[in-house]
């Protein structure tokens, strides 16, 4: 129950930040950071993958409802939720003693957290930008937008993880 309120709080906070601040960042159309992905990143290690997918879908849908892109963010978040367990098994460390804790910079180290974040964020942004346009024409322009946005999103997520309360 304590966990429930903690993650709901994190979700609402990320949503407010995304809709009021990060949706308004304008850098000639190349940088669109979507920091709300952090919600999927910080869910605990032990979360069952089916539940992770459902939460990912709902969080994407919430962003969709407020930015008028019904389905686009939901598609991308489900994709991110699907790859998360794979990436965790790829570079899991032996230090995970408590499976109920959430992946973080503080416990898992900067290097680990950076690679974990950057991969999930890249998968999310790539599927988001491709589905938003629904075409492969101008692919390298889209890819450039994905890469730049991934860098900025990752930067902010690491920054937020740095200042987030440690349990």
């Amino acid at each position: 129950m304590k966990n429930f309120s903690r993650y709901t709080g994190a979700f609402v906070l990320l949503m407010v930040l995304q809709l009021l601040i990060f949706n308004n960042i304008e850098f000639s159309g190349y940088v669109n950071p979507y920091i709300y992905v952090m919600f999927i990143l910080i869910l605990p290690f032990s979360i069952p993958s089916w539940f992770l997918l459902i939460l990912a879908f709902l969080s994407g849908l919430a962003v969709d409802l407020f930015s008028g892109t019904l389905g686009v963010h939901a598609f991308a978040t489900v994709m991110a939720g699907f790859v998360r367990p794979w990436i965790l098994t790829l570079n899991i460390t032996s230090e995970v003693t408590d499976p109920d804790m959430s992946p973080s910079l503080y416990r898992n180290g900067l290097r680990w957290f950076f690679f974990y974040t950057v991969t999930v964020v890249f998968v999310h942004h790539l599927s988001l930008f491709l589905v938003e346009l629904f075409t492969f024409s101008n692919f390298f322009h889209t890819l450039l937008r994905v890469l730049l946005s991934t860098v900025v999103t990752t930067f902010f997520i690491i920054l937020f993880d740095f200042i987030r309360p440690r349990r």
Partner: protein
Amino acid sequence: MRSLLNFLLRFRTLILFLILEAVALVLIFSSHSYHQTVAYGAARTVSGFVAKRINAGTNYFRLRHVNEELVAENIMLRSRLEQMGAGMQEHFLTVDDSLIGVSYSYLEAKVVNNSINKQKNFITLDRGSRHGVTRGMGVASSTGVVGVVVGVSPRYSVAMSLLNADFRLSASIARNDYFGSLAWDGISHRYATLSEIPHHVRITEGDTIVTSGYSAIFPAGLLVGTLTGEQERGGDFLSLNVMLSTDFKRLTNVFLIGSLNREERHNLEVEVTR
């Protein structure tokens, strides 16, 4: 039966993943015209309200610029008024009706929400069905074409911006009337591409691009932008780079353009071409 259950259990994550992605895709396609979902209508009212409050503050800082634009437009309109008095009537019949020859009506509106940083940008205006706005109306500012209304609620309307990958506009080169299709290339908010111009057309840098009036959304001759001189030869046609005359980054005052005869014209065109 048991093996089927085992199969489902074993791949439950993958199956759930595929189902959720399918649902997302269905949502994307069914809401293709952007605004039609009921849920979105509710969110629109809320975000429209918030955006209006924020805008009330930022508008103040743009007053100087808006004033300059209005003065320029007043001068332009005054000179056009002079010309109209001198114009000749071109009708077979003489009918004493001030509405003859008037085919477009105008309504001013304020931009309450706008974006330029996405691939599909939309603009929210503070006029809705209560003020007579309908889908398909054109939106322009004193500096040129802005977009087309795609959704209307009682108090607000949403226009598809020219800076939208789905936006197409029939535009022509003012100097020689060759027309083509104008679309945004999705890269810079200052430039768009005019395609389908035949090879033999001579173009010069700085040529004015205006609306062709073929769509009955915009009147003919409304400013769109100027040619930058950059061009691309591909296939049978030229693609020309156009610098847009409207700066979408500081859009505040626009006007809605309603075509009074659009239905009659549309019905005739459908009837004949069917």
